[in-house]
């Protein structure tokens, strides 16, 4: 379970980007974070795996506060957290298989990682994940030749290669066409249902959030303005959030 308590973050002294945000996300659920641009959605998500540091409050994953960890222990903790991005952040020059295998780099020694030494089992597993994502025809294709939807599925496979407990998704469908967006969201739904992952996803489409999420958190100006199930989110509240 993910528990965030009183998380604050300031880039400039007077204007906070996050102000005392509390959040709980359970195993096997999707939590959607919505809000207008600049509301602090990305800041919140990047604090959850401490890509952004120098904040205040607590970020506990299974009762371990990530903020208190040493650099080494944080690296270890990050192996339990997968992350996908709006612009995929794949290594375009490499093949799909190599990109997916990058997911297990964190579990290797520095030397083995440097020279990309993967075991046969890891390769088998990566191929299996690629297959599950419906990309088996592209395993040996360089990522630069893929479409946006395909790239995002490679991103998901790379994250799954880590055997994560939690999946962070930063605007995963913002650059995708509606059909690919549906597909990616469906996959995320299954990860929560079948694999019991904690999924936290930043979205700017409220309709998609109500369709797929179990739990919606809305941010505005760095403050939490809504926290509840999709059914409780009324049209008037949506207007207030985006006002």
């Amino acid at each position: 379970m993910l528990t965030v308590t009183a998380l604050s973050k300031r880039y400039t002294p007077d204007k906070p980007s996050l102000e005392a945000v509390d959040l709980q996300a359970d195993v096997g659920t999707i939590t959607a974070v919505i809000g207008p641009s600049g509301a602090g959605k990305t800041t919140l998500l990047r604090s959850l795996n401490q890509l952004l540091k120098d904040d205040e409050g607590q970020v506990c994953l299974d009762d371990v506060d990530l903020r208190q960890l040493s650099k080494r222990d944080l690296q270890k903790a990050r192996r339990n957290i997968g992350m996908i991005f709006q612009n995929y952040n794949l290594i375009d020059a490499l093949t799909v298989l190599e990109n997916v295998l990058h997911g297990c780099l964190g579990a290797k020694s520095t030397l083995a990682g440097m020279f990309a030494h993967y075991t046969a089992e890891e390769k088998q597993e990566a191929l299996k994940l690629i297959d599950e994502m419906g990309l088996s025809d592209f395993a040996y294709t360089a990522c630069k030749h893929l479409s946006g939807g395909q790239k995002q599925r490679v991103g998901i496979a790379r994250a799954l290669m880590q055997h994560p407990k939690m999946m962070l998704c930063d605007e995963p469908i913002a650059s995708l066409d509606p059909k690919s967006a549906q597909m990616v969201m469906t996959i995320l739904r299954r990860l929560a249902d079948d694999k019991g992952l904690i999924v936290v996803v930043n979205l700017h489409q409220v309709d998609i959030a109500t369709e797929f999420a179990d739990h919606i958190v809305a941010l505005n100006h760095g403050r939490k303005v809504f926290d509840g199930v999709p059914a409780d989110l009324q049209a008037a509240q949506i207007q207030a959030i985006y006002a």
Partner: protein
Amino acid sequence: MTPQTFFRRKQRLMLLTLSGLLVSYAVASIALGFQQGALLQVQTGFLWMAQNFLPTAATFKLLPAVLFQLWRAFIIATAAAGVAGLLSLLLAVIGAKNLGQRHVTVSFLIRGFASVLRNIPIIAWALILLFSFKQNELTGFLALWFMNLGFLTRAFLETIEDFDTGKLEALIATGTSRPVAIMQGLLPEIATPTVEWLLYMIENNVRDATLVGLLTGTGIGFLFDLYFKSINYPAAGLVVAVLIVLVISLELLSTHIQRSLT
């Protein structure tokens, strides 16, 4: 503004620029003592080459010696680029502003160091090195190496700073350490431009090796100088011919490599 004044202004600006350029050109030519008529005698150079540079039967006895020096020039040109390239890549990774270098002074120092190395004329390197390292291949190698180190560091810095660090962050988010993320994420992405720069450097080094040899009295440049000054033009022509073959083969090879990388 009416269309007429717009076009008139544009024409006037064009005319001013062109005449300014022409006047500067004329002034510079006069100051240099360059006579424009010389441009019409370009063909004399080619004619002269055709008459004098054609190798005779006697020159072919020199072929083994010439080919050996060509081989050495190629090895030195490539080794200078290779050794400098490795170090440059390291310096560029340390100095690049987008890879988490927090100390601005380190970036600045590496950039400045590269700029000074690359802008000191290669002949200055050759002449200074000649004193301490004497007349041998090492002097030529080091002159090329210093220049390459500056040039490649600068080139790699620019290449790396074009790299989208979000990709690196994605790997770090999986719990990878920074060095591993750089090896697995950055290097594959910059491989193509890096190879292109190295190939360019090798090609350029072959030409510069001739020049450095001329000044330091070693290698293929020295051989050309020797034959040319002793008016053994057919032998000098042979040197030029093998140089052309080497440079053009390198150019073809590098086009081939670049094509396989895309």
